[in-house]
């Protein structure tokens, strides 16, 4: 089971966190601090796994961002490494060649996407097409609601003029 997902920039800034095990706020900060220290300092040609407090962190660097997923000791590491890549590919497709800035200004979208890929720390959907379809559907729902709201408010605004 994936215990948590972290996206950390090369400077140690947190871009996304998702916790599937109950960590308190304090523990979360501590974990982030510890792991940034361990992962950001690792050289480029090393393996993608770090053993940490009886768990394992599978991580991969994409440009300036480190994608980290913490798993149990006996989980299949490569499987999780490819979940990370799966996630990145979907983000890439969604934003159209994703970069760190996309994930900063649209961090909430990254959360939507992740929720379509993982639940309870397990892989939910392995088809990129399906995920893309679902996210698009959600976006259009939000859009429609927005339009409706603006049109209603227009009506009210006009009516009260």
């Amino acid at each position, binding site marked *: 089971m994936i215990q948590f997902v972290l996206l950390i920039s090369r400077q140690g800034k*947190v*871009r*996304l*966190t*998702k*916790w*599937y095990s*109950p*960590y*308190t706020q304090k523990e979360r*900060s501590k974990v*982030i601090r510890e792991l940034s220290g361990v992962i950001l300092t690792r*050289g480029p*040609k*090393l*393996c*993608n*796994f*770090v*053993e940490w407090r009886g768990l394992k962190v599978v991580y991969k660097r994409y440009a300036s961002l480190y994608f980290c997923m913490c798993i*149990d*000791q*006996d989980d*299949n*590491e*490569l*499987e999780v*490494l*490819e*979940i990370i*890549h*799966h996630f990145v590919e979907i983000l890439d497709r969604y*934003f159209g060649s994703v*970069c760190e*800035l*996309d994930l*900063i*200004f*649209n*961090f*909430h979208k990254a*959360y*939507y996407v992740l*929720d379509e890929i993982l*639940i*309870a720390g*397990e*892989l*939910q*959907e*392995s*088809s990129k*097409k*399906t995920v893309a379809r*679902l996210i698009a559907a*959600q976006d259009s*729902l*939000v859009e429609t*609601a927005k339009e409706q*709201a603006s049109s209603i408010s227009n009506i009210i605004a006009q009516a009260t003029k």
Partner: protein
Amino acid sequence: MALSGMRGLSVFISDIRNCPNKEQERLRVDKELGNIRTRFKSEKGLTHYEKKKYVWKMLYIHMLGYDVDFGHMEAVSLISAPKYPEKQVGYIVTSSLLNENHDFLRLAINTVRNDIIGRNETFQCLALTMVGNIGGREFSESLAPDVQKLLISSSCRPLVRKKAALCLLRLYRKNPDVVNIDGWADRMAQLLDERDLGVLTSSTSLLVALVSNNHEAYWSCLPKCVKILERLARNQDIPQEYTYYGIPSPWLQVKAMRALQYFPTIEDPNIRRSLFEVLQRILMGTDVVKNVNKNNASHAVLFEALALVMHLDAEKEMMSQCVALLGKFIAVREPNIRYLGLENMSRMLMVTDVHDSIKRHQAQIITSLKDPDISIRRRALDLLYGMCDVSNAKDIVEELLQYLSAADFAMREELSLKAAILAEKFAPDLSWYVDVILQLIDKAGDFVSDDIWFRVVQFVTNNEDLQPYAAAKAREYLDKPAIHETMVKVSAYLLGEYSHLLARRPGCSPKEIFSVIHEKLPTVSTTTIPILLSTYAKILMHTQPADPELQKIVWAIFNKYESCIDVEIQQRAVEYFALSKKGAALMDILAEMPKFPERQSALLKKAEDAEVDSAEQSAIKLRAQQQMSNALVVTDQRPANGAPQTVGELSLVKIPSMSGDQHASTDQGLSQANGTLTTVDPQPASVDLLGDLLGPLAIEGPPGAAVQFELNAVSGLEGVPSSADYAAIVPVGEQTNTVQLMNLLEHVLMYNAMLFKQPIGNINERFYALCLKDSGVLYEDPNIQIGIKAEWRAHQGRLVLFLGNKNTSPLVSVQALILPPVHLKIELSLVPETIPPRAQVQCPLELMNLHPSRDVAVLEFSYKFGTNMVNVKLRLPAVLNKFLQPISVSAEEFFLQWRSLSGPPLKLQEVVRGVKPLSLTEMTSLFNSFRLTVCPGLDPNPNNLVASTTFYSESTRPMLCLIRIETDPADLTQLRMTVASGDPTLTFELKEFIKEQLVSIPTASRPPAPAPPAAQPTNPAALTDPGALLAGLL
């Protein structure tokens, strides 16, 4: 780059990004938080859209590491928004900010449930996602049935069902009882026929969790998993979108193979054959390709297949194929594969007959120990540790030692511990073992725990052949210019004991040994100095005829430390000084340490403990635990492994009462368990002090039966002692030692009790507390609380038992039976057969004391809760002191009586040793609590204590009893006790009773600390219950 679509949010993010430093960032965040707080508080109330914006900002601020607790409520409240955009934000932010233990979540359960059972598909998805991510136990209990319905519903679309599967998985993890196995197993099997691969992937994850707990129920799923694998392996009917770099859903393949690892075997030959075909294809058909992702995905499947093959313990051919593959992997350039190769090779060690083929790769593995990647080095170390046996121990340990000086600090401790363990476990000869440990201390002293050098001392002490060698080695190390303090400790100790064996070698005269050790003294800390002092004393003792010059120097040192601020050093200095003046008598006192009783190595124990503590039940760990027992057996059979002399010399004759051990147990306040303490201690007190030398060693594990006993005495609840332990203890108890018999009884009683329901609190402690007080709790477990209230009048007593049912369902078949000793007449009123929910029932009990005795009445109590029969035996606190009545007598009366009761059997005197050291005031209050009135001033000697009391029983008249205790201020552990009364039995029983209290240190002699609440007032519910009314009337 797309902006967030919410202007305020984008501006805020830009602002933060533009902050030049952390200080500015904090200011900006504080400003924003202030703004959000005011908005949330404003009377006008925000629209959902505005709220949504602020809640997103909060999540962003939270990610930056700031506290946003104040806004949790707002996030949760958005969940109940009617429109999708706001609801979505509510769900996502709530599941990111909160964890399952937050109270706020409880408020949302109803809304969440409405969304789940409602008709809106998108709302269902949101709710299922949040519950799947942060749902806790309460969600589990209230939502599981609804989620199950969605998962198997034929009208739901796959997008809802796959979420429901994972949501159910979470709920199941939080509380396995929510999935009813009987009904669910068939459904689960049907789910595995699912055509939609998204739903199938999620369902397979659910299956893995279910079978990890209980594979029995899900046998029907086994062939389905194999079918899924076949389908994927042949790439039949797999939509293009579910292939990943050309591989049919690698994730689903991995999951299906994982599930299969929880079934112990596959019996059906057809299924087995099909599965092996698939596995064979994976093993053979996975090639290294250029594309990283394809490579990773195919190897994820391959490694899972390897694990499954290992689990199934397939034909030899397939196994050696696996080892060959792994051997290839550990040598490749790609670090991930190298890492996984090493890791899986370690797992492979659990399979019995591949050891030799793995050993062939030893050189490669040792190379990995020097890999630039610490993750890989760790795996290599683990593997070397696992594959070490008698045949390769020398090579591996020497490699580890060599690597030690180059290893990073993060690994040194683990490395040195592992090297020490291997050296001990597989030593081809003992001198090699000593070499290894000394090298270890030399190279990595800071990382060598005390256990390691204690162990080497134990070995040397127990093996005479080894002593000269070890001493010579220690002498060699002392010549090095700078040595680690641990090395000073161990060599000083060894030379103190055995340097006389070297006397004829050059540079080893007592004087030379002394000066080389003494050179180190200025460099060591206060914990080492006592060891050095002992060494000096021993060197002095071994110098025969005495060397006046050496004597003078050593005495000067002792003299110097006589005023040391460290009490341990000071005491040793003073005592050694005094002792060493005694000349020949010194020989006996400072004689060589006796051999250590055989005990399990603290190191090995440490290693084992570290291995078994696992909460997760993964397939590999489950198997590892099964293998564990085998591993232990192998360790025990060391002689067969080719190191006979090691073991032969280790299993020593036990030295029954080692001073060190006694000391240790007294220190821990456990002398209760140690029978030798009540008998006369033949050794002079000073020997005990020397025993201190070995204090730390002895504490590690006092010999055999006593250990078991002590542990139980401390925490009666921690382990259920097996009957074999009792067998071992009984002979000790037969030494007419009632203390131990009592203990034995207690343990048997407790053992019975624990077989059924774990009691809350320590039954012993409760009993002892009640011996001193008249009301309190006698027993408590998750279902029932038994309180007691007692009144005593002369030789009669009235006891009321309060039986309180703590549950919401009745306790049935309640039975209480008193097993009275001969001296007590006890009548128990009728106990109702049923105790209604949450009710308390009173059962009065009449007691009469017939004659003096220390025996204890036992209450055998049983009830049934659900299908569980709980049966406990409890001692009733109707003990001897309850029939005492304090009385104070004048001096004339006392002395008149004292003189008239001239000697045995009416007046008995005994010297008691091994008494728990108590000051006179402490003893006075202890006596008073037993209703023995201490009469101050009667005895002219201030160190003595005189007490009087009246005893009531039917056979004796009210009888005056007189007690005199003479303590020795120099040694509080011994005293002389004289008891007198007009009845010989009473005198004897009272004397024994007081002795037990002084020696056995009943837990209650401490102030009965967190006093259990006195029996609660009768619950009104009890009054309406006819049974309770009846009991009350009786």
